[in-house]
């Protein structure tokens, strides 16, 4: 039995007030709050167990290295990877996508090669590919979504042509909550020798992920959305893709030998992890992964689905509110606009006064906003600690917006 009230006890910030009212935090799509175990682990690492990793032979260096490297195994299990060396640490999905673009895209793609993207990608899964378009003449091919916000996997598969080399796609839209059938896409893509790169920034937070079952080549996650520290993250890269990559950043830790005339590289994963990493951030992420695993990803999914169902029922009852994206099986993310043209900025300002934190804007998805024909939306995105009472508070705050702005 998932006891959400007990879960809330684990998150100190949820007990503070905002504008004199209890905080209702519905901006989890942007970043999630941290459980006490993560906060304590970060403090403890700095207080008792801190030194640089992979460098010293002294006690603390060994201890910090063990704690830091242990997280790789946790992430391997969390993502269902086969090997620890397929987990490359990053600072988040943006770095993950840039690593793939520079590390794999640059040496393996040539002018005229195509990358297929959906129109609902986050800029982190667009701009690194635009770099390749600008610098190497790679062609970006876009697949539209359906009117209900769903993505027909067949449309992605049909877009594959003789020059297609990669499909870069989200598993869950940060704006619409749409869940993408990555497995079907990957199966068809691989039959045609096309590589699949998945943005798992949102999906890994809300549902169990198994990269071997999905059979994808790249899968990026970001720690700060996974209830872990900001500046932590990882990307899964299948071994055969790792072998095709060149290092993206050069510096300490990623080398085997450096002379005045030549350099040889360390083996993966360290080959792709130059410089002193986010040691404590990654240790914190390991604790966050333990925390989520202990709650159970299936239990989190089911809790959030019941929140989604209740929110759908309540929000659809507001006839002046438009919800962007109603794909079957979507996650608990609701992007909204109001009839009468009340601006997302206005709505967010008013609901904030009621203690409700939502995001207003374009959510780093300009192509999607253009496709939807809206300038911005208000987004309420739920997490593992949100409650149905908070859905009610959101609705109450939106009703006040309607009264003031309508």
């Amino acid at each position: 039995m998932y006891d959400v009230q007990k879960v809330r006890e684990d998150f100190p910030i949820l007990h503070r007030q905002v504008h004199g009212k209890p905080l209702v935090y519905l901006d989890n799509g942007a970043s999630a709050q941290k459980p006490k175990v993560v906060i304590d682990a970060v403090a403890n690492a700095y207080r008792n167990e801190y030194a640089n990793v992979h460098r010293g032979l002294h006690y603390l260096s060994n201890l910090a290295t063990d704690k830091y490297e242990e997280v790789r195994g946790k992430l391997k299990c969390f993502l269902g990877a086969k090997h620890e060396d397929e987990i490359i640490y990053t600072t988040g999905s943006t770095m993950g996508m840039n690593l793939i673009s520079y590390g794999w895209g640059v040496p393996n793609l040539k002018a005229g090669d195509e990358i297929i993207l959906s129109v609902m990608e986050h800029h982190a899964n667009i701009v690194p590919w635009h770099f390749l378009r600008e610098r190497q003449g790679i062609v970006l091919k876009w697949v539209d979504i359906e009117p209900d916000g769903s993505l027909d996997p067949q449309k992605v598969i049909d877009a594959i042509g003789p020059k297609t080399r990669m499909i870069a796609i989200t598993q869950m839209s940060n704006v619409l909550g749409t869940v993408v059938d990555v497995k079907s896409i990957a199966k068809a893509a691989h039959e045609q020798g096309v590589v699949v790169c998945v943005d798992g920034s949102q999906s890994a937070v809300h549902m169990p992920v198994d990269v071997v079952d999905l059979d994808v080549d790249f899968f990026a996650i970001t720690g700060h959305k996974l209830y872990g520290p900001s500046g932590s993250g990882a990307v899964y890269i299948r071994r055969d893709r790792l072998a095709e990559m060149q290092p993206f950043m050069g510096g300490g830790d990623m080398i085997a030998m450096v002379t005045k005339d030549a350099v040889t590289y360390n083996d993966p994963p360290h080959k792709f992890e130059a410089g002193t990493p986010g040691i404590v951030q990654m240790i914190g992420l390991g604790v966050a992964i333990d925390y989520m695993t202990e709650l159970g990803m299936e239990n989190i999914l089911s809790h959030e689905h019941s929140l989604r169902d209740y929110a759908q029922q309540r929000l659809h009852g507001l006839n002046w509110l438009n919800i962007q994206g109603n794909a079957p099986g979507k996650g608990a993310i609701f992007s909204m606009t109001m009839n009468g043209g009340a601006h997302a900025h206005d709505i967010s300002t008013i609901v904030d006064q009621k203690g409700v934190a939502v995001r207003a804007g374009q959510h780093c998805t300009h192509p999607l906003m253009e496709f939807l024909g809206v300038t911005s939306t208000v987004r309420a995105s739920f997490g593992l600690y949100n409650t149905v009472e908070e859905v009610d508070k959101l609705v109450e705050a939106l009703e006040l917006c309607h009264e003031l702005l309508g």
Partner: protein
Amino acid sequence: MASAAFEAIVDDFDFLEEWEDRYRYVIEMGKKAPGLDENQKIPETRVLGCASQVWIVPEITDNSIDFKGDSDAMIVKGLIAVVHALFAGNTAAQILEIDAMAELGRLGLDQHLSSQRSNGLRAMIKRIRQIAEALEEDLTG
């Protein structure tokens, strides 16, 4: 020295204890404000740094500065009207002397004064000060 129009807003705000009423007031100001014609909403008049779109068109007579503004967000449009009351009709030198942040702080709309880039008020004030600085340079230079 803030204008009489701005002092009148401050007086009204003193009576409005509930935040809902203060926002209602700002929204009403936004609704009543004349705004701009569509052909005035061009990149040259656009104030960057706001989550919503904001445009400011200066109107300079002799050395006094007036302006018109508009936004697609109603609260922001109301705030433009507040800023208008604060600055309009002053000379460039007077505008540069007004501590806009302190004056607006008297209205308790603190969250619009945060350094977050999505809040347009700072960008708006910066634009008006730039207009005043340019005019002042023309006059003295």
